[in-house]
């Protein structure tokens, strides 16, 4: 521990280079797991999709059959299976050695930069994301060994950095679409950029709600806020954002925006294969094509991590405050103390498990939901999620102010009041929209009576 403190403070044998060396270690501890887990993630998606569609999926690559003349007698003629885990790696190696076919009319500089620009944010996104607990049980914040290794940089801008880097993803997509000199690519790139910026707004609003409740933009501070008592008065349970009423709404908005930001089904309009071939990466081949996919999967991985940290209590396995419980129930203090330490040391595993659950949810959605139409997509982003996010934002403010003024009961009363007001507003607005002229009539299209009599009465010369 002492040498780590010396390294961090720049007083060890490495002197001033100490913090930089520690920084490099942190970066590697963050990037290497992504690089190694993304192939596994691709394998998991293919296998899970196969099972959901009653297929087997890739299960052959990496099977070793030992020959009869093998030196070890026990292994002769036996097969060692790896369940196809090496399939994505084999795909990657194959793609590296494929021809990099570049169309003649592309804007070469932009065409070659675009995949790199698309992959960059996926790696840089998690720079402020803690993958373990920063507080050793029964001690002050910043204690314990994990605090030295995560997050990559515990800067004040925290969530703002995540939002800023995730919006950089638009550039890769729009540049790829524009530089390819292909009409499908152009339309795919335009669609993707419009979709990404539309969902960016609602995503910012949903994260703003949690920031507002916790009073800090640092993600470790948000996790610490979620380790407090539930709703401010249930002492034994942690206040995970998803358990609070406003946090649940924010979490739903965030999940939808997260899927749209990573261009996953059912929001994969930019690469809708039945209308746009492959969208913005139609003209890309070999590894440049795979880089777009890798960016998508790495972004899924990191966005699941952001969701786990901001809404699911970060690196806590279960939403219980073991330290508080051990002092509340002295009879079982030993057990709860043990669980508190186990919770700390299993933190990274719990975080990975939450990420894996998030990714599985992504895959499940892809297997279940059909793709949206483009106007539905834009309407969902602008007319449903954005007003919902802003309303939720006001509700969080009300909740915080009323809880401080009148106690927890005041908070819940304000929520109920806000819900009634919003419900009345919503029904009135929807009612007003229904009584006004329907869009299809505004366009001057005459509706045909769908009954057999109505259809036969239509004069074909007039339609």
């Amino acid at each position, binding site marked *: 521990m002492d040498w780590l403190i010396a390294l961090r403070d720049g007083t060890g044998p490495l002197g001033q280079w100490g913090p930089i060396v520690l920084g490099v270690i942190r970066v590697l501890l963050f990037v290497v797991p992504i690089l190694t887990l993304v192939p596994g993630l691709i394998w998991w998606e293919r296998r899970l999709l196969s099972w959901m569609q009653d297929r087997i999926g890739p299960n052959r690559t990496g099977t070793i059959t030992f020959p009869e003349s093998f030196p070890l007698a026990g292994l002769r003629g036996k097969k060692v299976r790896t369940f196809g885990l090496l399939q994505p790696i084999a795909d990657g190696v194959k793609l590296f050695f494929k021809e990099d076919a570049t*169309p003649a009319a592309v804007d070469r500089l932009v065409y070659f930069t675009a995949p790199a620009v698309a992959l960059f944010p996926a790696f840089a996104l998690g720079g402020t994301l803690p993958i373990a607990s920063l507080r050793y049980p029964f001690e002050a914040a910043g204690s314990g060994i994990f605090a030295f290794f995560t997050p*990559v940089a515990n800067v004040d801008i925290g969530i703002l950095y995540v939002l800023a880097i995730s919006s950089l993803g638009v550039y890769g997509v729009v540049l790829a679409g524009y530089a390819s000199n292909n*009409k499908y690519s152009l339309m795919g790139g335009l669609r993707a950029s419009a979709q990404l910026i539309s969902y960016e707004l609602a995503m910012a609003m949903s994260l703003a709600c949690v920031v507002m409740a916790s009073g800090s*933009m640092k993600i470790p501070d948000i996790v610490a806020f979620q380790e407090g008592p539930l709703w401010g008065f249930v002492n034994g349970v942690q206040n995970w954002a998803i358990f609070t009423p406003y946090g649940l709404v924010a979490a739903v908005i965030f999940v939808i925006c997260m899927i749209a930001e990573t261009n996953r089904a059912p929001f994969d309009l930019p690469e809708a294969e039945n209308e746009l071939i492959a969208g913005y990466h139609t003209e890309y081949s070999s590894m440049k094509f795979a880089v777009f996919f890798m960016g998508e999967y790495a972004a899924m991985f990191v966005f699941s991590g952001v969701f786990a940290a901001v809404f699911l209590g970060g690196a806590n396995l279960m939403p219980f405050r073991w330290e508080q419980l051990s002092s509340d129930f002295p009879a079982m203090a030993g057990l709860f103390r043990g669980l508190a330490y186990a919770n700390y040391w299993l933190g990274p595993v719990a975080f990975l498990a939450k990420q894996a659950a998030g990714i599985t949810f992504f895959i499940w959605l892809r297997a279940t939901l059909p793709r949206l139409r483009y106007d539905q997509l834009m309407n969902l982003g602008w007319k449903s999620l954005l007003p919902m996010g802003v309303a939720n934002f006001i509700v969080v403010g009300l909740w915080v*102010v009323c809880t401080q003024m009148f106690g927890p009961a005041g908070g819940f009363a304000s929520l109920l009041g806000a819900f009634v007001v919003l419900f009345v507003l919503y029904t009135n607005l929807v009612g007003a929209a229904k009584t006004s002229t329907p869009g299809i009539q505004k366009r001057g299209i005459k509706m045909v009576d769908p009954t057999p009599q109505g259809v036969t009465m239509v004069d074909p010369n007039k339609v």
Partner: protein
Amino acid sequence: MQNEFIPLLLLMLVAAVICTAMVTLSWVLGPKKNTPYKASPYECGVQPAGNANERFPIKFYLVAILFVMFDIEVVFLWSWLTVFNSPLTGLDFKIFSFMEVLVYLSTWIVGYAYVVRVGAIDWDETTSLHPEKLGQTAQEAN
């Protein structure tokens, strides 16, 4: 050298190196046997018609403008968000600043209602235009 942001810059550097390496390696390792067919843009196998850099619907541009406007309004909120519920501020500040933010948000809501009313985010091309602008009245169409 005690800057907290240095590891962040290192992360960006590593990310940039990985990205560049991936794109360059495939260019270096792969064979290069280009033919006129490979070099032409893909249009479902038929001969490409015209240049791809042509006009596209103004809607995409409009959405980008709206995004910038609404996003800037949210950006102004971030500075207030972080201090709103921090332990350093008292109840008086919370109530006062919350009311101020409600006033600020009302301008946001008026802007949003206007944008919805004029159909700027209606993706059905024709509903955002008046029928007169399409060269005919609603009655004529009927």
